[in-house]
């Protein structure tokens, strides 16, 4: 029954989207164009002068009402997107207004700011439904708290509760305050199950602020085995500027290959932590076409 409901919802969404997409297709060749340059891409520098070579696309944001839980109204009215590629890598610069910086998810009611790029084959309406069993999609997800972990060190309990104190934890090493990962032996990790089983959200040492995911339909999003995406986000003066980058031709077979001169389906999502955005509670663009120059 659940499957039938999901398929029905997806079909309704796809029919309405197809009308929308047909209109866009008729208007222009592509909604977002990735400009080819010969330089090294500014994959961790949202303020690089090189971004001036990319065309800026202003994309209206909409609500997420395809699947529950919904986000009835978008947190931001629009975002700006630029894209560059150099034959080996592709990078997106996403900027949007956000009056609050939400880069900690330690407390129960703290949610992160974030942005994501969805990539899938062109002409497939199922892409906005996060793909299907036979049409997987890739999602590159930048997270503000992961960025903060990298920029300032892992944010543990003590970052949210400065007066926090504890005498000991099982199998912990050293003296209080015990911090991850240094004071925690393999035996101590047993008491942090998310870390122990390898959940990417629970790893105290983040090597990237961008998580590569694959999805085959609503609710199926999964961290890819091979992680190669990089990026960086900077919040200044009420605005996030976030770079999300990956290889055009990754060697792992979970990623869609991006070939120069070809078009792809794409969509962008924004999470506003201050609004409680998380998971499906997000602002999204329509399904767009991406042209890789």
């Amino acid at each position, binding site marked *: *029954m*659940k499957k039938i409901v999901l398929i029905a919802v997806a079909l309704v969404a796809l029919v309405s989207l197809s009308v929308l997409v047909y209109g866009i297709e008729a208007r222009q060749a592509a909604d977002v164009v990735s400009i080819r340059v010969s330089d090294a891409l500014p994959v961790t520098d949202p303020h690089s002068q090189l971004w001036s070579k990319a065309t800026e696309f202003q994309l209206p944001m909409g609500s997420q*009402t395809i*699947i*529950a*839980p*919904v986000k*009835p109204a978008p947190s931001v009215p629009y975002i700006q997107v630029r894209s560059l590629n150099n034959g080996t890598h592709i990078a997106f610069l996403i900027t949007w207004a956000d009056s609050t910086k939400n880069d900690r*998810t*330690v*407390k*129960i*009611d703290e949610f992160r700011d974030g942005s994501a790029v969805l990539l899938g084959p062109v002409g497939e309406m199922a892409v906005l439904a996060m793909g299907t069993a036979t049409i997987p999609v890739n999602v590159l997800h930048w997270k503000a*708290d992961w960025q903060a972990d990298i920029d300032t060190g892992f944010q*543990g*309990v003590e970052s*949210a509760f400065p007066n*926090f104190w*504890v005498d000991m*934890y*099982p199998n*912990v090493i050293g003296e209080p305050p*015990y911090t*991850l990962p240094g004071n*925690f032996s393999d035996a*101590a990790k*047993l*008491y*942090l*199950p*998310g*870390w*122990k*089983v*390898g*959940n990417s*959200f*629970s790893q105290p040492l983040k090597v990237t602020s961008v998580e590569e995911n694959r999805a085959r339909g*609503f*609710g*199926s*999003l*999964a961290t890819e085995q091979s992680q190669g995406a990089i990026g960086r986000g900077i919040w200044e003066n009420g605005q996030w500027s976030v770079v999300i980058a990956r290889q055009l031709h990754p060697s792992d077979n979970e990623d869609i290959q991006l070939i120069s001169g070809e078009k792809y389906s794409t969509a962008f999502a924004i999470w506003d932590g201050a609004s*409680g955005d*998380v*998971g*499906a509670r997000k602002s999204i663009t329509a399904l767009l076409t991406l042209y890789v120059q």
Partner: protein
Amino acid sequence: MAKVYNWQLGRYMEYWYEEVRPRKQMAAVFDINKCIACQTCTMACKTTWTSGKGQEYMWWNNVETRPWGSFPMGWDSKLLNLLGPQEWVNGIYAGKTIFEAARPGERVLGNLPIDMDWAYPNRGEDETNEPIDEAKYYFSMPHSIWTFYLARVCNHCTYPACLAACPRTSIYKRPQDGIVLLDQQRCRGYRECVRACPYKKPMYNHETRISEKCLFCFPAVEQGNWPRCMRSCIGKIRMFGSIHTPDNIDPENPIDFLVHVKKVGLPLYPQFGTEPNVYYIPPIHVPATKFLQQMFGPNVQKAQETYNAMRNGEDPELQGILMLNVSTDRIFSKFRVTDKHAIGFDDNGSEVVRVNLNEPKVVRPFYDPKLGVYRHNIT
């Protein structure tokens, strides 16, 4: 939404998934009349499962004092306010469940507690419903001034709200025992389960940034043993075992006997619609007013009458099964009561435990001439 049957409501209701009951459903009955809030269960759970960093505030098992205590603060009153006044008509729930009352675009009616809500696990401890006055309120039953202790764990519901709310299907209900688990690899910390669970038993780990929940000690259950909180209960308030649906009752099954045959074990807030699988024998010293009826449904008074009859010696079988509470670590699926003993049997019919129906009474003289000592306060 699918239509599923909830026997605790006496009707079909809406749920996110179709009705698929587990092959076996583990359950428990807590006798509130015996609980002294010693928190031994709480600490047994804490030291077993939640002593890691990021779990400091977690109490998968907690004991709160009613009417004022609650962990997290106001977990039930907040949801009852959201749900609004609802009614039972002739034993059938005529109101809306948290699934049926879900707002458009949401799967469940819920709310997300903030950190401060979890900061007062002992709030209201031992506080009575009204200030104690000069009147000897304890001279008659039920008492006009009262308090009682409510031990709580995950209810491993037949229709879990946490499971329905998780958009990633990170939460699943095991077909072999009905235990509801949260996959630590799939969870992405959305906290939809924390928001949706009416009993607030999924909890967010500060350090791993994903959610966790009570496991019903499934590794112990898989080996035929009771969960840690259950077997450590020094007040012997708990009975643990499997439960059947009302159309498939085994009267020799301890939980079936307490819940379906004697109907003294009542679900906690059945109107929420999750068909919880931890049952409570309501306190007999508390008047069966709207407070208790709201908490345990419309059969509170009948359950109290049955329990009182047992106390008057009119129901040795009920007395016997309650004597078997926390009498062994081993799960037993059948019981029998003789003139002298209550006996528990496993699935193979082998005797697991035997207890006296009445403990032998020994009265020692105040003065022991043999030892030449006086005994004070010793029986």
